[in-house]
């Protein structure tokens, strides 16, 4: 028997105007498991993550985080959610350290000074702790955003293309951080353009095609070299 899912969606439909983006998404992610959502640009990956976070409301269907509808999450449960999007959620005019201090205060992270030092070290930004984020490169900002999303040790993690803008070292770092989160029982939903071997034992890859979640190769490792050609030409823009 699996644990009760931390992230769960049932019959999710979402249209923008009349154009369908998501057409009946069902997913359930148990603690310590990851779902890798593969899709082309415009496939609706970001929309799906936004709905999972409760940032948007579906036209039909339901999203639950920790068993509660995500739009009605209480503060205690919101504390258990971490999110990484293509927007970094960082303040350009604050330094790296100040940004983390702010989020530690919002999420009431215990012993935040130590946690911030540790995380800055971890994402390789310790030297830049006192630099303002506006001076950061896109990759550095993404590294800091990773620390920002993880510093409160969330139990559910939603990551929109966590490897975007990262150099190979950074991508490896991100993968390691996700594996660690999984190992301590965090449920992870992440999106990517193509599948790769994140954590074969814990990670399932599914492909988002034309608003539906298809079962991609069960073994994500075997998909590493797959090219993911467009299954239905010409629908990428939907």
């Amino acid at each position, binding site marked *: 028997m699996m644990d009760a899912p931390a992230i769960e969606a049932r019959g999710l*439909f979402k*249209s923008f105007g*009349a*154009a*369908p983006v998501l*057409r009946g998404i069902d997913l359930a992610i148990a603690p310590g498991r990851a779902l890798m959502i593969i899709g082309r640009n415009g496939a609706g990956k970001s929309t799906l993550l936004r709905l999972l976070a409760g940032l948007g*409301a579906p*036209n039909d269907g339901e999203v639950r985080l920790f068993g509660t509808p995500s739009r009605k999450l209480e503060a205690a449960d919101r504390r258990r959610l971490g999110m990484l999007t293509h927007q970094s959620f960082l303040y350009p005019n604050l330094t790296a350290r100040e940004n983390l201090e702010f989020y530690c205060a919002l999420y009431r992270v215990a012993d935040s000074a130590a946690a911030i030092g540790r995380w800055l070290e971890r994402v390789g930004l310790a030297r830049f702790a006192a630099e303002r984020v506006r001076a950061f490169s896109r990759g550095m900002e993404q590294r800091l955003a990773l620390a920002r999303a993880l510093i409160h040790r969330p139990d559910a993690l939603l990551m929109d293309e966590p490897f975007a803008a990262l150099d190979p070292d950074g991508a490896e770092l991100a993968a390691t951080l996700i594996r660690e989160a999984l190992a301590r029982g965090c449920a992870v939903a992440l999106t990517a353009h193509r599948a790769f071997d994140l954590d074969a034992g814990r990670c399932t890859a599914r492909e988002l095609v*034309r*608003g*539906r979640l298809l079962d991609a190769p069960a073994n994500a490792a075997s998909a590493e070299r797959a090219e993911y050609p467009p299954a*239905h030409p010409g*629908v990428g823009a*939907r």
Partner: protein
Amino acid sequence: MANTFTRTLAALTGLLMFAAIYMTFVFVPTEAEQGIVQRIFYFHVPCAWVAFAAFGIVAISGIFYLWLGGQIWDDLGYTCAEIGMVFCTLVLVTGSIWARPIWGVWWTWDSRLTTTLILWLLYGGYLMLRAMAGDSPQVARFAAVIGIVAAADVPVIVVSVRLWRTIHPAVLITKQGQHGLTDPRMVATLLVALAAFTALFALLLLIRFASLRTRSRLAALERELNLIDAAAGDL
């Protein structure tokens, strides 16, 4: 749309409206001090009543929209804001027509006129929001909040404007006491006019609401149709 209820209501409205017009122009005696122009009163007051009622419904449906969700509440609020705006405009126009012969000016910063003008501007802003921001649940929530806050603001507006005028009396004395309906026929006329305008309000509400509901359903159908299209593409 034109079901039996709507038709009956339309007939009733027409009947009442004819009665109100007849009573206003023929039946009711001319007011002694103001003369013939006072008859506009029997249109002016019902318009104000309808405008206030409509704006009240905007706020109530806003509360229900935020509380329960449901496109129907948003459609109701939008409908009433539009209708309220029409009647609020009529209040200003009839008020102006009335003011000219009585007070010698088209406009005076009388407390009631001023309050009506502020209301007109407030709900004009509400409708501008809806017109410029387009249709989306987010805009509907924005509109609901504006509708609620605006209605809550109205009592404060009324009190402040009244104090403003009492402290600084207008050059033209506005003796609201002149509305004193000395003749029972005046009361009867006003009541019939109120009934006629209330029926007109209900009729407009019904028709416009139905059309907004149809539009919402159409949007939902269009969404569904696109979904079916997409599903067919899966095969």
